[in-house]
């Protein structure tokens, strides 16, 4: 409902005060402009008072000729004739200028920026490469991305979600690469969000992802601008949100969760090796306990004879079946991990001692758990922590539980059916029209160059096909100096 700005200063002041319920941080200052009485209104918690002084009060005091918008030096100044819009402008950190007898109010952008400095994200460290990370400030994050792609094709679209919290989001994409259908789909899903309060990017991810019941994360979270940029250049879209350092990247495939910028900063053989190690540890992170249970419980003859004796002698002292042992240890591990996050780092060492020594050693001495099981669980934990993304790491450990049950019931056969089930699930998953397990399912041999291994950069002539980019070719003859005539193959 529109309410006209009243010519009377007092009435305007009362209206604003009532709308903000006489909040204590609402401040006023009287001014004089060309013999007119005026008022500057702002929230001291959100506005930068030095800027108000410099950009509004000083120019006014100089009393130059001209209208207000000419005199005030601030970049961002708008006229508003609707009084009801002013409270919203105030809570966004603007300052409102009212003049006696004038039907317009001036809204001047003088929001204060309190933000931490750009630093490397703690949970996504790299050995080589850029060490900056996103922070809790949308504009800075946009800056970090734009600085890396100085190209007019990079588009940012702002959104406001949350009817009460009014969280600001920015959707970023490359106009010349991202598939327009994808952008349209993301746009419509973001617009359709109806919620009081969208606190974090996690909310957004949960609201727009395709299969909310799947255990696999379908949207990649990252705090690294270089990672976001790399995905933008493959034709994906990135969603940044204000007040949170995580960027959402979509659509992604399963393999994106196992890639890090490090792969591209080291030599390609090293990068490929590390990537293979990571994917291998994905498999071990859920398969090892199940395999152990199956082998010990059903098919000990699969192991070499000497090993059977060692394992058996250790197991015979334990009163529980392997499945109980495994569950006990796995859950202990999860508890330890969770405790490790909550505790401050100074106390963290205690956890290491309690977890490593007391539980690891004593539990075996007490005959509650066998030695091989401790090894198995430790292996599982370590391999799950290899994953560069926290979401997939947790998911892979949770996957282990149903497989353990299957292994305890059906041995190796159960595990195979579990894996088949998993594979079917991965076949089914699609996010934003992209197959989740691409390029393996559906198979696309060309894209395998940068999936399990990383081929040399100069051989990756095509972008990955999974986000259906507008243009597939990304380079040709990157080592041009080797060719005398780059026109022929």
């Amino acid at each position, binding site marked *: 409902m529109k309410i006209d700005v009243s010519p009377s200063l007092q009435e305007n002041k009362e209206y604003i005060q009532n709308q903000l319920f006489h909040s204590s941080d609402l401040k006023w200052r009287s001014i004089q402009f060309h013999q007119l009485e005026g008022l500057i209104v702002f929230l001291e918690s959100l506005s930068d008072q030095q800027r108000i002084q410099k950009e509004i009060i000083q120019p006014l005091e100089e009393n130059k000729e001209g209208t207000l918008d000419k005199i005030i030096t601030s970049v961002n100044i708008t006229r508003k004739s609707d009084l009801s819009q002013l409270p919203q402008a105030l809570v966004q950190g603007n300052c409102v200028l009212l003049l006696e007898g004038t039907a317009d109010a001036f809204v001047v952008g003088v929001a204060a920026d309190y933000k931490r400095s750009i630093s490397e994200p703690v949970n996504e460290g790299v050995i080589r490469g850029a060490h900056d990370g996103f922070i809790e400030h949308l504009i800075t994050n946009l800056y970090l991305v734009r600085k890396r792609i100085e190209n007019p094709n990079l588009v940012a679209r702002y959104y406001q979600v949350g009817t009460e919290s009014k969280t600001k989001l920015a959707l970023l994409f490359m106009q010349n690469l991202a598939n327009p259908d994808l952008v349209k789909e993301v746009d419509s899903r973001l617009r359709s969000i109806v919620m009081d309060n969208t606190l974090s990017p996690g909310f957004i991810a949960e609201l727009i992802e395709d299969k909310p019941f799947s255990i696999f994360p379908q949207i990649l979270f990252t705090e690294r601008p270089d990672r976001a940029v790399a995905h933008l250049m493959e034709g994906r879209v990135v969603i940044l949100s204000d007040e949170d350092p995580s960027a959402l990247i979509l659509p992604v495939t399963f393999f994106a969760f196992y890639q890090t910028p490090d792969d591209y900063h080291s030599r390609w053989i090293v990068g490929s090796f590390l990537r293979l190690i990571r994917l291998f540890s994905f498999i071990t992170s859920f398969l090892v306990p199940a395999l152990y249970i199956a082998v010990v419980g059903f*098919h000990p*003859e*699969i192991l070499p004879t000497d090993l059977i004796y060692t394992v058996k002698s250790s197991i015979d002292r334990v009163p529980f079946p392997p499945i109980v042992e495994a569950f006990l240890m796995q859950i202990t591990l999860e508890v330890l991990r969770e405790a490790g996050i909550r505790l401050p780092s100074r106390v963290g060492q205690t956890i290491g001692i309690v977890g490593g020594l007391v539980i690891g050693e004593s539990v075996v001495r007490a005959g509650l758990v066998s030695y091989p099981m401790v090894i198995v669980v430790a292996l599982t934990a370590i391999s799950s922590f290899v994953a560069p993304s926290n979401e997939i790491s947790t998911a892979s450990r949770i996957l282990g539980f149903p497989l353990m049950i299957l292994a305890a*019931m059906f041995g190796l*056969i159960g595990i195979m*059916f579990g894996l088949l089930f998993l594979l079917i699930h991965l*076949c089914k998953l699609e996010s934003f029209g992209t197959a989740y397990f691409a390029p393996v399912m559906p*198979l696309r041999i060309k894209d395998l160059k940068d999936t399990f291994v990383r081929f040399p950069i100069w051989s990756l002539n095509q972008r990955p096909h999974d986000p259906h980019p507008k243009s597939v070719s990304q380079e040709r003859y990157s080592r041009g100096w080797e060719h005398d005539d780059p026109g022929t193959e």
Partner: protein
Amino acid sequence: MMIPEQSRITQGQFMFFVIQSQVGVGILTLPHKMQAAAKGGGWISTLIAGLIVQVIIVILWGLCRRFPSDTLFSFLPKITGKLLGSLLGLAYIGYFLLSAGTILSFFAEIVGKWVLQATPRWALLLLTLLTCIYLVKEPLQVIARLFVISSFTIIVMVLLSLFGYANANFTYLFPITDAGWGNIIKAANEALFPLVGYEVMLVIYPFVEGKSGGKLKAASVGNMLIVLFYTFEVFTNLVIFSPAIMPAISEPLLYMLKGFSFQIIQRIDLLFLSLWIFIVSTAIASWLYMASVGLGHFFHRGEHKKAVFYAAFIVFILALLSEDPSIIDLYDRILKTSHYLFVVVLPLIFLLFSYLSKKRSALTR
């Protein structure tokens, strides 16, 4: 008929679909049967069987080609009239279900014999079928994706079998025509049954992209690869086991793998069996898919998803009943007859019929 995007598959996927439908339980027992019937010439019989299958594939293709946008169930009424067509369609569904049930039952028997001696049979059947249901209720594209990827297990199986050549004795093969050409050809007849599964063409043909020539090529290449794989396995077993031992072992492939071991893994046969689970499950899924497409066509306006659950239940009952060897024998005999009927004789008749009726309609027009 409009084919929705999600149901369309490429010709490559079609090839793997044929492969996965064909490889089933037969592979384990085939060498034993071949040796019994054709001695050292067993591998030739397998090749001959492959050629026969190729001819059948051409016949089926010729039939499908006449109805490029119809599945088996929707073109049958067009050839034979509505009532007879629907009845025949139901008969085909029965054939598909029985095939799935028989494969499942053989599978449970072998797993029970080799790996899980103490596990109740119904639990194993249930586990297999639940996995299949989870797959089959999806659109064709998803099924095809899985079939492509699980075909790689065949390569691993071939690699594992290669170890056998460490103690191969090629003299076991000779004289190749020991059993006589008559027996070799008779054995080829026997080898037809492990190769069944190409019938899937009848159902998924309209969903494949591209021209009919390409589709024939895809199906033929798929069949050829499988025949080569089977021939390779039969040949391997023939050169490893002496003719005297062979009659005593019903699953020579597994015995062979049981014989050798790596440093860490002592039982290669278990590894092989685990991979084989992928192959068998996909074969069962394929039959189940064919049946539920049919049931969906008749009872759910083309939505095969709704039919999957009770189709699987029927398969479960069929497999459960067949614990008795006499019943599985009965299934086997029914299947052999119906195979000739449903895959060779009827399609040939339909093909002739559709040619004639087309001519007639061309004349009247």
